[in-house]
């Protein structure tokens, strides 16, 4: 087990290196730092001096991959690629265009993101699974048919409409909760209710449908027939046997996104102006702050790799047939 985990950690390294190289190509080779400087400083009337100042401020004034002017080892280390990569791998994300420390910003903004994403995930899971179980319990009846139709309709509506509609009806017309904003501590709850509700609602169509197919696949199996033959009622088989076995794929699907919850949801956070990482990213995209976007890309892939690892471990915990080696 320990060996396996260590090996997986080592496997993560080339993966992150790949991500790093990809983002490097995107950010520095497709457009040179000079292009970026001109973009940031405005297209016209940019002097060479201003460009080189900007590059020096952001640490982009070294050669990209190979520093011919330096001596010995510094030929490699005194390049943008080396310095930016090492910074990312050590989680030193540097300074954003507005002069703030990105690492500190991320640490601070991660918690509001989590406060929104975790309840959304948990409540969403609960609602989806119960809805799916209901549909499976009443399979073959009009109730199931209506449920499927409802799911298809719900999943055909863009999540933007759920948000706009929810904000308009619940927050603006009924005035039950504030439209947007955030507060520290427990006071945040009244700001979080609506986004969580909308998040759950917008996911229920596709979620319930997906879980329904999982349950239906399980219902066809032999052990379920045996359970019924034994004289268990339909509800008993469903909750005691089907649900438990179907939990394996559900769990692995959930575990892989668990670390990514820190990243937050882009649109939710920007609509409800929650100061999480999602709105941080959007702000960075809109103000074309490349350092932040690069840091977030790297952070996202680290969390994804952790998610993969957790998935494998959780497999062994819930399914005794699976052994890691």
């Amino acid at each position: 087990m320990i060996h396996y985990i260590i090996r997986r950690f080592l496997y993560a390294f080339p993966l992150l290196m790949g991500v790093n190289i990809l983002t490097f190509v995107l950010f520095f080779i497709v457009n040179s730092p000079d292009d970026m400087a001109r973009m940031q400083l405005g297209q016209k009337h940019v002097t060479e001096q201003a460009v080189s100042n900007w590059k020096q401020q952001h640490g982009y004034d070294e050669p990209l991959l190979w520093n011919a002017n330096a001596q010995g080892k510094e030929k490699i280390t005194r390049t943008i690629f080396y310095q930016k990569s090492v910074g990312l791998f050590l989680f030193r994300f540097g300074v954003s265009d507005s002069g703030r420390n990105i690492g500190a910003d991320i640490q601070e903004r991660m918690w509001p993101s989590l406060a929104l994403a975790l309840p959304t995930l948990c409540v969403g899971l609960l609602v989806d699974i119960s809805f799916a179980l209901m549909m499976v319990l009443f399979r073959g009846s009009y109730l199931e048919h209506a449920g499927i139709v409802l799911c298809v309709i719900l999943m055909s509506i863009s999540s933007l409409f759920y948000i706009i509609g929810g904000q308009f009806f619940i927050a603006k017309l009924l005035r039950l909760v504030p439209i947007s904003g955030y507060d520290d501590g427990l006071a945040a709850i009244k700001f979080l209710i609506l986004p969580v509700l909308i998040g759950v609602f917008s996911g229920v169509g596709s979620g319930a449908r997906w879980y329904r197919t999982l349950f239906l696949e399980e219902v066809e199996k032999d052990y379920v027939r045996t359970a019924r033959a034994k004289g268990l009622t339909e509800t008993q088989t469903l909750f005691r046997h089907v649900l438990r076995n179907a939990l394996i794929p559900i769990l692995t699907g959930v575990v892989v996104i668990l670390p990514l919850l820190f990243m937050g949801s882009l649109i939710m956070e920007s609509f409800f102006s929650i100061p999480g990482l999602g709105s941080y990213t959007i702000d960075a995209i809109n103000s074309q702050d490349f350092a932040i976007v690069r840091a977030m890309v790297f952070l996202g892939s680290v969390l994804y790799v952790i998610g993969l690892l957790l998935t494998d471990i959780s497999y062994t915990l819930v399914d005794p047939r699976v052994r890691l080696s």
Partner: protein
Amino acid sequence: MVVLWTDALIYILCFAVLGIAFFLRGKEHIKRPLQNIAHSKAGMASLVVLLFFVLIGLLDSVHFKPANSKSNEIISLLDYWATPLRERGEKTYSAPLATTLYSKEMMTLADGSTQWGYPRLEFGGRHLDYPETQHLSDVLKKAGYGFAQGAGLSGLIILCYLGVRLISQGDSKCAFTLGAAARTVWAVMIIIVSLSCTLIYLSAYYHVLGTDKVGEDVFYQAVKSIRTGLVLGTLTTLIMLPMAIIFGILAGFFRGWVDDVIQYIYTTLNAIPSVLLIAASILMVQVYMANHEQDFTSVIVRADMRLLFLCLILGVTNWTGLCRLLRAETLKLREMEYVQAAQALGVKESIILLRHILPNVMHIVLISVVLDFSSLVLAEAVLSYINIGVDPTTYSWGNMINGARLEMAREPIVWWSLSAAFLFMFTLVLAANLFADTVQDAFDPRRSGG
């Protein structure tokens, strides 16, 4: 005629689809699932709706420079027919079918005095002398007339169809009894044709869905957005299919280091949150375009390049899922007896891949293409909202929603832009989802039993 990049790809796609259909005609293993689809009411109804959207999208994909215009603008066939809609802009917001503007302003009356009130629209309801009394009856009359036109037209089409059937079959009883699915198809067609005739007729006199902030007709915007949605949904799959199929099959078939490399590539791509990868790439394109302004002379060319690039990026982020499915299926198939027999007989590996593996994974490809379509259309809206979607000058539902977002806070609210985008998008995505379900039921061997 001017062929934009996306136009060219759409034409290629159309020819490819026709070619594949021609190649597969009469093949027994394709016929059976197709018959299943033809017998499904929901499937056929949604197919008709989809085809209607595709027709509009195709009309909007034939671009040319109008002969009499001096400017450098490029318009499409749809623009040409909708010229009145395109050119009859108002000053600012106006409600659907309204005769006056949304906001009050100072008006100069005929006798020179000024008055604070709702000014008449420049084009919407211009033909009315006394809008207060005539408005409603005129709208109803025009709508009724348009509807009658549409109903007549669809009736004519149905008569033609039945006539052709009668001639080809000879037996009148057999020719006039339609199956349940066929009846649904015709019912949906009548609704679509009548509705669009009504809207077209009304839009000659009014702004059917109102006007937006700069006074542009919302109905026109929503119709123009159809092409953007379709392009994103189809071209993206066109771009991702070759990658997914080639990599997926190779990884599953050869295993070993090929498999390792391909798995490494797609895990790496998967590891990057897709929205961020799209954002990063679009940012880079923006920088590139800003620095190479001379290459993108016309606004429409520039917007088109960005649309194409968005398809490309979406394709790059989306192919991994299909690739993984294909790899797993190929791993299963290569252990099948017929593949092993071919190997034992000394058939070349490339032939095995083409003849035995590829045709047997095609149902997965087809299902994932139709399933992806609706999610891509939905993704466009979200991406445009974050400003990393299509160009702001492109008509798209995402841009409409983005523009309408702040209008909900107005008093009285401006609901029509949002509703129009919602209505069109919902229809397309719902039809796509229903059709995808039918296709999946028909082609997925695991589900065909039920």
